[in-house]
């Protein structure tokens, strides 16, 4: 594997890399990919201290509206804490690929909840199953309290079915639009009736609300429960194809390639093992095709975590994380709706592009993007600039440029664009970059990060 290929792999399976990290890698693709999987074998949950919830029961809440309000306020704060903890995790992952996959599944099994206990459990369920068996995964998701709430499963009762979950299970989670009839949805909803959970978040089937009658689903008749329905859905190759297509667009290229996606679905359909599918993708020659490199617009989280991977930066106020996510249009744990974030071009509009272009300099260099001119003018300009901006910066951060210089020591400043920018650079822009004086590696890094090209990975 050459440097470009390694960078490509690490941008897709992780959030970028730096030369020092790469040095320890071999050039053998199989060994690099194996290591990636081996390092993600373990599962490290993100768990907050929620001991304040211990000993509280549903009845306490019913009898004490004041306590309910208190817990709900505290819960809101805890959900923000979880958001911050997750971002810290993404910047310093224990299991890189697992975290990357978890982020992917978050935008597949999209869910949102106000109860921190359920949010945390759901998030860790995604993490646990991220590289596992898709069948087990879907079944686990169908029983998660956060999902039961989100798609009204709790209102889904015998003789009074609510079709919300049944519809999204097929449309968004497994098969894609138009792959089933309205009648299939009705029958599917019946199989999931009575799905519920207890106060602590354990799944409970309410037998009295479950419809034990015969159902006819996809032409098969039987006394199906939810798990049986999921098994029937997965018998359709369309499911393997649908998931492969989504993985391809996310991990390989937003422009689908039918041939490659079909070869992925052949692999996936065999056993619905996610790890095998991902290994197949990362081992395929086509994954490293020129047209796939730098073809994707970074999501706000990829963008933010990527910056921090290149220049380690400490955020003095955690709420700045929230502000950045909001400005860029992606707040973890707060998706727009069950269809999730649209991704790619949809991240970029007139508002977000300006924030993105300015953010690296704001976080790492007191908002300053240096210019070509050196000498007095530049120093003066800098002085004036910092004076004008003093106390006005929206974020409080401490960038660690020394660490950056160590990590990027092996790269000459004039070659820095090859490791900072993932895809092609516009010809005119490249000509402009050539005119920059590149006396400072730090300044040049900021200049590169302030380009439209840096939005791609």
């Amino acid at each position, binding site marked *: 594997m050459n440097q470009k290929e390694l960078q490509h792999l690490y941008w897709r399976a992780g959030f970028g890399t730096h030369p020092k990290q790469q040095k320890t890698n071999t050039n053998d693709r199989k060994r690099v990919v194996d290591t990636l999987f081996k390092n993600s074998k373990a599962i490290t949950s993100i768990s907050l201290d929620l001991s304040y919830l211990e000993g509280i029961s549903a009845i306490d809440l019913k009898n004490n509206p004041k306590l309910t309000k208190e817990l709900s306020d505290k819960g809101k704060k805890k959900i923000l804490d979880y958001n911050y903890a997750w971002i810290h995790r993404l910047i310093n992952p224990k299991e890189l690929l697992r975290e990357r996959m978890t982020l992917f599944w978050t935008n597949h099994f999209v869910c949102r909840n106000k109860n921190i206990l359920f949010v945390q459990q759901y998030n860790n369920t995604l993490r646990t199953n991220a590289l596992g068996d898709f069948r087990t995964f879907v079944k686990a998701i169908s029983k998660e309290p956060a999902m039961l709430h989100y798609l009204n499963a709790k209102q889904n009762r015998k003789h009074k079915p609510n079709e919300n979950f049944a519809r999204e299970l097929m449309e968004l989670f497994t098969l894609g639009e138009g792959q089933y009839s309205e009648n299939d949805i009705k029958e599917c909803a019946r199989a999931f009736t009575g799905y519920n959970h207890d106060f602590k978040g354990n799944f409970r089937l309410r037998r009295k609300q479950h419809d034990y009658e015969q159902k006819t689903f996809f032409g098969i008749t039987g006394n199906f429960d939810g798990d049986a329905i999921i098994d029937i859905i997965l018998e359709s190759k369309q499911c393997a194809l649908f998931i492969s297509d989504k993985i391809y667009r996310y991990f390989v290229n937003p422009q689908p390639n039918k041939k490659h996606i079909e070869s992925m679905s052949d692999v996936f359909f065999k056993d619905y093992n996610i790890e095998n599918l991902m290994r197949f993708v990362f081992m395929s020659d086509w994954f490293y095709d020129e047209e796939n490199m730098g073809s994707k617009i970074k999501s706000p989280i990829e963008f933010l975590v990527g910056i921090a991977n290149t220049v380690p930066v400490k955020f003095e106020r955690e709420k700045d994380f929230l502000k950045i996510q909001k400005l860029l249009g992606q707040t973890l744990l707060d998706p727009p709706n069950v269809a999730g974030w649209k991704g790619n071009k949809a991240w970029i509009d007139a508002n977000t592009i300006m924030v993105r272009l300015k953010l690296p300099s704001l976080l790492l260099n007191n908002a300053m993007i240096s210019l070509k001119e050196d000498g007095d003018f530049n120093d003066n300009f800098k002085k004036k600039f910092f004076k004008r901006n003093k106390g006005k910066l929206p974020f409080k951060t401490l960038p660690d440029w020394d660490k950056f210089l160590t990590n990027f020591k092996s790269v000459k400043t004039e070659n820095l664009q090859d490791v900072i920018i993932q895809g*092609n650079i516009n010809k005119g822009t490249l000509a402009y970059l050539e005119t920059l004086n590149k006396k400072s590696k730090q300044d040049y890094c900021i200049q590169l990060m302030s380009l439209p090209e840096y939005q791609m990975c």
Partner: protein
Amino acid sequence: MDRRKFIKKSALASSLFFVPNFVKAFESVAKERLGYKRLVIIQLAGGNDGLNTIIPHNNDIYFNARPRLAITKDIIKLNDDLGFHPSLAPLRSLFDNGELSIINNVGYPNPVRSHFRSMDIWQTASSSDEYLQSGWLGRYLDTHGDKPYNAIETDETLSLALKGEHFNGIATNDYRVLYNTSKDPYFKNVLNHYNDTHLSEHNLGYLYQTMIEAKSSANYIYENTKVKLSQEDYPQNHFARQLKTVAQFINSGLDTKVFYTSLGGFDTHVNQENKQSRLLSHYAESVSAFVKDLKRNEIFEDTLILTFSEFGRRVKQNAANGTDHGTANNVFVIGKNLKRAGFYNDLASLSDLDENGDLKYSIDFRSVYATILSQWMDVSAEEIIPTKQKILEFI
């Protein structure tokens, strides 16, 4: 996608691809008239309690359902049945002049009582079992807009309502900051060198194109906004500041069809009385100042103001002197030449409620949108509102 298709698909294709020469040209392009009618949206976020806003002052069911929360004093009676909350006094003259139409019981089938989801439904104009990823005003921009500033939201981030399939409005809570960011000399240098001969780089081309748009929009707004035109006294609160900015934009004749503003805090589960009273004052005083401002600049007759909330609240109050999430609610339409001013329709029955004890809707919110699109913005609602809607008679 080949080059031709790509250009055709891009809403900005006609003028945007020829950089850097174009950067200058863009700003001097003759204003493409979108028509001069403007729409201002005011979103009351959190679910405003409609029954304590427009009060059924002659209805025992109302008083019985809200023993401690019903408004009993200083109701501004507008007819034998309905009256304003005292805080809405500044809107009295609009009502009397026939410049306010109140549409009761606006909602949608199978209502959702989650803020989040219901706001989503209102912003995308979807049904309650359907998920759309673009907003209704965004889709309006898709077909009828050509610059991001054709729709402006006075906030830091853009609401889904203004996001189209391929075209978005612009959000800014301070257009001067946006301008200062965009004029960073480094960006200027980059754009001056940018060379757009290789459209094969789809995503990269799109990024540059959006960067140019953003810069031009920031410039356009900054250079064309004349602050002096709005000298009306506005109250001192964040919402009033939003409306003041909108008035500056409108009075300056910006080429903007849609303005989006928001006032939050209406989720009054606990001790509703003072909270709602204060918020409604902010609302009414600010709107009153805004209308005066537009009138002084003789532009009120070209402006329509729509106020909505994602849902109303339960008829029965709760134990904490608040109200819980409900369904149908009233919508205010403010404008000069309304076809049917005053009360557009009667309040729904307070005894014939749904299974949760909430009002049943009688007017679909999407027919309000469709009416505004076809009767005010003068465009076909068909591509923008996914389901066929009845056109109402208020404008």
